[in-house]
């Protein structure tokens, strides 16, 4: 653990909070200006690299992102434990570089609306990702079923994967 901790100390912490019945909020500070951090979210070839880091063991079947207000996206993933690839899709409601991105998650009717803000903190960027679920029940269900983003088994498996990676110290 010792060596791991020293590298952890340099990382900015990620926080997750259930802000209300229907809201889940993730925050993280990045060591670069909003212009750059926003680019990493809005350019498909960059987004793809970090959204599914290699450690997840999940690969893209396809990834289409038309990142502009009114544009749509469709991401299809596969994982050895999944019988069939899983699709995530929705629309960009707002794309305002370099400060704000809003999209829908339409793979389920209980999907959240995701708002990401990029706030300048003296050359660094505070990213706040806010998921607003249609109802309290929708968020409760997402949590109760062990899913993470909406109602998705992929991420539940992902969680297990991460936990096992963590336990093995990889």
């Amino acid at each position, binding site marked *: 653990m010792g060596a791991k901790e020293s590298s952890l100390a340099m990382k900015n912490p990620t926080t997750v909070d259930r802000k209300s019945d229907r809201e889940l909020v993730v925050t993280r500070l990045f060591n670069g200006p909003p212009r750059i951090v926003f680019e990493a979210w809005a350019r498909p070839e960059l987004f793809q690299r970090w959204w599914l880091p290699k450690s997840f063991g999940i690969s893209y079947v396809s990834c289409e992102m038309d990142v502009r207000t009114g544009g749509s996206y469709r991401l299809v993933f596969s994982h050895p434990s999944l019988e069939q690839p899983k699709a995530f899709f929705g629309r960009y409601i707002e794309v305002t570089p370099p400060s704000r991105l809003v999209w829908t998650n339409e793979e389920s009717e209980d999907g959240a609306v995701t708002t990401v803000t990029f706030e300048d903190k003296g050359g660094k960027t505070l990213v706040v990702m806010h998921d607003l679920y249609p109802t309290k029940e929708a968020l409760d269900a997402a949590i*109760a079923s062990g899913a993470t983003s909406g109602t998705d088994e992929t991420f539940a498996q992902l969680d297990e994967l991460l936990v096992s990676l963590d336990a093995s110290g990889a």
Partner: protein
Amino acid sequence: MVQYSHPRLDASFAALSDATRRGVLQQLGQADASITDLAAKFHMTLTGMKKHVGVLEQAGLVTTEKIGRVRTCKLGRRALEQEAAWIENYRQMWEARFDALDTIVEELKRKDKTHGRKRK
């Protein structure tokens, strides 16, 4: 249609929405502690810590037992495991993503410099 109705989730999430209370749970995850211990650990007054523990107790996340003059706190049952574990797993997933995003931000910053596009 399966109904996921967990009335306790409400109280639990309210309890978990506070950083000190999450810290207390983490602490109790390692060892039981008295309210006095916890107050000292989190640099709080006894009264302040009693309130936090009260919220956690109501949510079923912590149980307390008074032995002699000392009130000892320990973790409550499964509610904690379910909800805190979910939040923590979710956080770990995002942490992994954001670590990868750090790498890309660094790359873009370097590129920015070499192209002399640095704006002042």
